[in-house]
């Protein structure tokens, strides 16, 4: 295997792993901040206990998110040096701004928050977690802006053998970036809401800490409900944004080979990438794809065959990942609505609780699938239309990358196990303070 392929595998492994932990920190920090605010307002100790219980899970995720985030930043230099040299002027500055404007705030106040439960007033302590929540989400905004630039580069010119910034304002205000941000944050909030619901369901099924976990469950439900609806409605808008900005990705997402006017959406498709066709297409709904992509039932959607072969992304992976994300994306508002409807009768709804408990992994799968669509669907480009992935790697020996990739797999697997063990143990244990009696 060559250094390029190994580097791609390594970056994929490192990013997938990183994003197993990040989304929960984005939403959970907000929920914890709300809990502490309620405590500060009402003096109801249970909210404080909730913040402490969920706070511990948050800290475990945060720790892994931080250490795996550093490796991502440095991998641009170690494994993607040609990319870094070519786009550092724009991409690098977004990462540097993220560190300066957001990550410092997050990392400083997370320690303050974790260590001052008994020292700061309830109000001041709530402020520290709000700062952490704000900074974590701001951090995501900058990183996603950087990613959006790779998907849809704007505000630059090619000069002296590299991309140079010409319009910073265009880079940070482009709609593609804001769609990416809204979509990714919605996904993170769904995941966080459903995580809280699932863990709460575990205890409610056992009828322990009932008030504590009913409140938690309801807070998670509100978050999951709002953002699962946002994700579905807005996902459609984002789809048409992709259609405009990245037509090859759209064609791969739909496994559309021939250019078609009034392009249909099929209920069931089995792509055959080698044969450049679909082995099976069932349940055609004429014009629906045209409508979704261009808001016009008669619009022409360009098929993969009308793009040069070397410009097409891997179809099967992109297509499957997209279907998984969409399928789950439609399931989430249904689940959240069901939970919202039953929110005051949780103990009488064991079936709901069981479903929510087993649904914990689903938003994780959806967000990983979503990133697969985004990143695999962008291929063969590292910066869409500007630089190919094949031109982006570092001039390094494959053996070096083989060793580091192996080390990543081993270390990350062990870390993942340790984190999973700690989280599962803590989640099952429930709150340290016995509130079942109250």
């Amino acid at each position, binding site marked *: 295997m060559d250094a390029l392929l190994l580097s791609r595998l390594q970056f994929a492994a490192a990013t997938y792993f990183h994003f197993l932990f990040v989304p929960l920190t984005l939403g959970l920090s907000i929920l914890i901040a709300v809990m502490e605010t309620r405590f500060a307002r009402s003096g109801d100790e249970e909210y404080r206990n909730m913040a402490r219980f969920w706070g511990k899970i948050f800290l475990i995720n945060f720790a892994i998110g*931080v250490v795996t985030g550093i490796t991502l930043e*440095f991998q641009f230099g170690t494994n993607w040096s040609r990319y870094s*040299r070519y786009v*550092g002027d724009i991409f*690098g500055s977004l990462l540097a701004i993220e*560190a300066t*404007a957001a990550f*410092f705030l997050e990392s400083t106040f997370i320690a303050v928050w974790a*260590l001052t439960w008994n020292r700061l007033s309830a109000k001041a302590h709530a402020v520290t977690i709000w700062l952490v929540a704000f900074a974590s989400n701001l951090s995501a905004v900058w990183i996603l802006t950087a990613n959006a630039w790779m998907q849809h580069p704007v505000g630059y010119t090619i000069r002296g053998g590299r991309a140079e910034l010409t319009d910073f304002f265009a880079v940070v205000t482009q709609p593609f970036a804001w769609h990416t941000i809204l979509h990714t944050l919605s996904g993170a909030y769904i995941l966080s809401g459903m995580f809280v619901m699932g863990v709460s369901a575990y205890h409610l099924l056992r009828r322990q800490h009932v008030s504590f976990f009913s409140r938690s469950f309801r807070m998670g439900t509100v978050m999951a409900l709002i953002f699962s609806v946002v994700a579905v409605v807005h996902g459609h808008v984002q789809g048409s944004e992709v259609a405009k900005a990245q037509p090859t990705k759209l064609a791969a997402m739909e496994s559309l080979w021939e250019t078609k006017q009034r392009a249909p959406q099929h209920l069931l498709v089995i792509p055959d990438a080698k044969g450049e066709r679909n082995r099976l297409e069932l349940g055609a709904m004429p014009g629906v794809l045209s409508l979704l992509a261009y808001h016009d039932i008669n619009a022409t959607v360009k098929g993969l065959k009308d793009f040069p072969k070397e410009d097409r992304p891997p179809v099967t992976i992109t297509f499957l990942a997209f279907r998984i994300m969409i399928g789950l994306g439609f399931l989430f508002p249904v689940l959240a609505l069901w939970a919202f409807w039953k929110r005051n009768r949780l103990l009488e709804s064991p079936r709901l609780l069981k479903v929510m408990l087993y649904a914990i992994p689903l938003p994780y799968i959806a967000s990983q699938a979503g990133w697969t669509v985004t990143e695999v669907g962008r291929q063969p480009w590292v910066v869409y239309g500007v630089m190919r992935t094949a031109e982006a790697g*570092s001039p390094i020996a494959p053996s070096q990358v083989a060793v580091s990739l192996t080390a990543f797999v081993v270390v990350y697997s062990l870390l993942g196990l340790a984190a999973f063990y700690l989280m599962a143990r803590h989640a099952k244990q429930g709150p340290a303070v016995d509130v079942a009696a109250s």
Partner: protein
Amino acid sequence: MLASVWFVLWGLLWAVYFMLGGFDLGLGIMQPLIARSEGDRRMIGQAMGPYWNGNEVWLIAAGGVTFAAFPTTYAVMFSGLYSALMLILFGLILRGIALEFRNQSRSGAWKSLWDACLMVGSFLPAFLLGVAFANIFQGLPIDQDGVFRGTLWTLLNPYGLLGGLLFLLLFVEHGTLWLAVKTTGALHERAGRWAKGLWWALAATAVGFLIATWYATRLYANYLQNPMLFSVPIVLIPAVTVAALFGIRLFAAKNRWGRAWIASAVTIVGATFFGVIGLYPNMLPSNLNPTYSLTVHNAASSPLTLKIMLVVAVIFVPVVIAYQSWAYKLFHHKVSEEDLAYEEAYGQ
């Protein structure tokens, strides 16, 4: 001009990381040597608990600024030093997780495992950052395309190893002094003794490094060639650094541990600046052919990016310094049984 300003800021960010991250790296390395009981180990954890995360962001900022302001330097430095950087990264991962996970379980095996990770994970970055910077001072085998013609073993040459040893000693001295500041009782006494003893090794290595630098690098030649440009730094930086190095010992002898730590901080910043300013205008000198070197001019970003970044830095860095100082003040008290009790109660 703008690029030169960023060169100084680039050096400053690395220096601040070495100054802040240095003490928690040093403490991580010294933990098994200084601690004699579980109580000691937890005190040492407490002494860096509130800070290490915020300290490490200075490394992320230093990396980010290298990427943003000097993309070519970032590309060549990070890919060229691939294996060393990967080891540094794995070290940082292990120690970060060790600090957060260690006290999550009461099992002795669990704790010993993370203690070992903390030690190894702190040693690797401390030593290898020294190796990397010494090699940068010395020059790297960079060809005309910016490709690094070497391996990890190329870096482990005598001068590189001496640089690694110097960083290691700077950091363990710095960390031991921090522990002396933050603790009382037997642990404090032991930290003080270690700090006084380690100082001799540090001073001897520093002298050796300064002499070796004359032979191995062009830093002094660069200083002497540009007397106008360097007239201030050439006198000031080495003078302050050497004075601070002796200051550590003087303050330590008087048991003025806070001042000794500040002197140690000045030594670290001074030593970094001595090297970085001596490189100017080079950033990564090539030892194959000086014309292949990456300089402030041929590696910098566009003036627009440098300008925007400067605005961001001018606004946010003072704010960061303000709230980090506030956080340092908030936890300025000596660690005590009370902190351990907090840990029990709040299960941090």
